[in-house]
């Protein structure tokens, strides 16, 4: 097990290098001189620009700049915003709980919707229930999360006035207020997520239910419920769990529009503001962090799987 984890972590080194290179290269997309942005845009003085060039190491070569940037990042220094001049890591960590609340709730809802519906559709494959679930999931998959978010605001906040249209209350301040403000964003992210997961679970369960061990289990007289939940589900969970891990990582790093329409002060909103200011360190910081979250979660899923399934570990 230890050897497996070591092998997996070693394999991450080239991946992390390429990720960091892509993130750093985003600076090359910026038309014009980042030093002018940092020095105040239109109001920039030549002296200010010179200071900014020096601070951003713009006189050094691209490779040297990359080296300096990676060196800082490894020490947890993502630079500071061109605008509010707070460090990016500080701003992100103060906003991360909001995004985490959003993503965890959405993940829970995704599982609550996707797993039962996926199993039900697989067990009743070809029947009316299966067709309803498959059609429903096709429609739900055609709803982008921000699209659904706006429909929910329109229905529950504007027409029915039962839930707030936006804003955030900390979990420690008021658990009820926290949940009330997050129900709609959770649904907006959880329904399309659940639809996608249901399809995954359905496909994996149908494959598993065709296996010989399922026939054997049924032939020796085990109850259907035991066969479905114990024999088939366990073996069908690899692909859905991987997809779920990816989905959770994308929710943590990609909730920009949801946070904007529900005015949630999380990492996505911070990113959104930075996009309009062309606030390069913030953009790079958020993009890098969202990729790192993916890498870590993916590793966690793989390790969990290796732990549960010796075939993966030794194969």
């Amino acid at each position: 097990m230890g050897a497996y984890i070591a092998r997996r972590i070693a394999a991450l080194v080239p991946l992390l290098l390429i990720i960091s290179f892509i993130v750093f290269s985003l600076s090359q997309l910026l038309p014009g001189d980042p030093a002018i942005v940092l020095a105040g845009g239109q109001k920039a003085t030549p002296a200010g620009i010179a200071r900014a060039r020096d601070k951003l190491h713009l006189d050094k070569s691209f490779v040297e700049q990359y080296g300096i940037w990676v060196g800082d990042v490894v020490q947890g220094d993502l630079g500071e915003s061109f605008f509010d001049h707070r460090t990016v890591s500080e701003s992100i960590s103060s906003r991360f709980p909001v995004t985490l609340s959003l993503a965890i709730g959405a993940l829970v809802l995704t599982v609550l919707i996707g797993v039962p519906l996926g199993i039900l559709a697989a067990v009743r494959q070809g029947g009316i229930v299966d067709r309803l679930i498959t059609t429903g999931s096709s429609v739900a998959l055609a709803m982008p999360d921000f699209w659904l978010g706006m429909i929910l605001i329109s229905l529950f906040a504007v027409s029915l006035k039962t839930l707030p249209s936006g804003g955030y209350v900390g979990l420690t301040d008021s658990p009820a207020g926290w949940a009330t403000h997050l129900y709609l964003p959770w649904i907006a992210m959880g329904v399309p997520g659940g639809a996608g997961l249901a399809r995954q679970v359905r496909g994996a369960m149908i494959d598993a239910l065709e296996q010989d061990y399922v026939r054997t289990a049924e032939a020796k007289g085990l109850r259907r419920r035991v066969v479905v939940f114990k024999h088939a589900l366990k073996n069908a969970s690899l692909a859905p769990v991987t997809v779920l891990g990816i989905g959770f990582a994308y929710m943590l790093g990609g909730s920009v529009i949801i946070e904007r329409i529900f005015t949630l002060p999380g990492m996505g909103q911070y990113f959104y503001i930075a996009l309009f200011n062309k606030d390069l360190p913030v953009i790079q910081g958020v993009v890098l962090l969202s990729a790192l979250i993916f890498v870590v979660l993916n590793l966690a899923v793989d390790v969990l799987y290796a732990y549960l399934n010796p075939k993966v570990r030794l194969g």
Partner: protein
Amino acid sequence: MNMEMGPAIAADEITDDPLERETGMGEVAPSPWGRVFRRFVRSTPAMIGLGIVVLLVLTAVFASTLAPCGQGPDFPPDLGPQAGHWLGTNSIGRDLLTRLIYGARSSMFVAFLVVTIATSVALVLGLVSGFFGGWLGAFIDRCMDALFTFPPLTLALAIAALLGPSLTNASLAIAVVFVPGLMRVIRSQVLAIREETFVEAAHSVGVGDTRMLRKHIFPNVVSPVIVQAALAFGYAIGAEAGLSFLGLGVNPPTSSWGVMLEEAYARILESQWQLVPPAVAILLAILAFNLVGDGLRDALGRESIAVEGS
């Protein structure tokens, strides 16, 4: 239950025959593409999807002819649906039906550009990595793994914002995030084909790399690419709406369903109903491409090898 898959395929094969006789094509050995076409046409959801797609494309192409009014803010603001303005007007007096029709043009333009760029790049990378492998293949694979770690929307937003808002930049940004997924599908297909007996046979009679790629590998990669491209169309429409919603897609006077959503959202208390037209358009468009993609996948499913040589 667990036996259903086997008989299901057999039953399907049997139903092929009467159909071929009905259409009078029984005598002619049907080409693989002919079989795919017939299977696709028989799927009701796929045909509904295709119908909507055709309507969308026609709307996008003939937008200026179909639009009932000019695009300018020439009318009283916030009119409700009425004769002359079937969907009413927005807060600055632009006709909403006209904007909806021109919005189809933005959506289709971006989706077409995204799919073309992403598919071409992914095809080259997938063929090189899958067929030649080696250090170059390994390097391409790692780069794709790295691109895959970024949440798609976040990376697309960063690229679009840094390049500056425009439809072309938005398309480039969305295309970048589509490449790794498409490339993986193509690569795994190439790897599977490479192990086929006909490839080994071709190799043993001295077929060179170029001819092998062109005549044997490429034709077998086409069908999964078509399926993925159709599905990518749907995602691209959603992504364009998202980018335009945030102000990183079209520039102001140009219409886009995402911009229409944003306008309606910004004034949701005053003119809630303005949300409906763009919302319905986005949902239908994505759903239509997904239905076509699913239909193609089902129709092509068992044809991936048989298509070879056609």
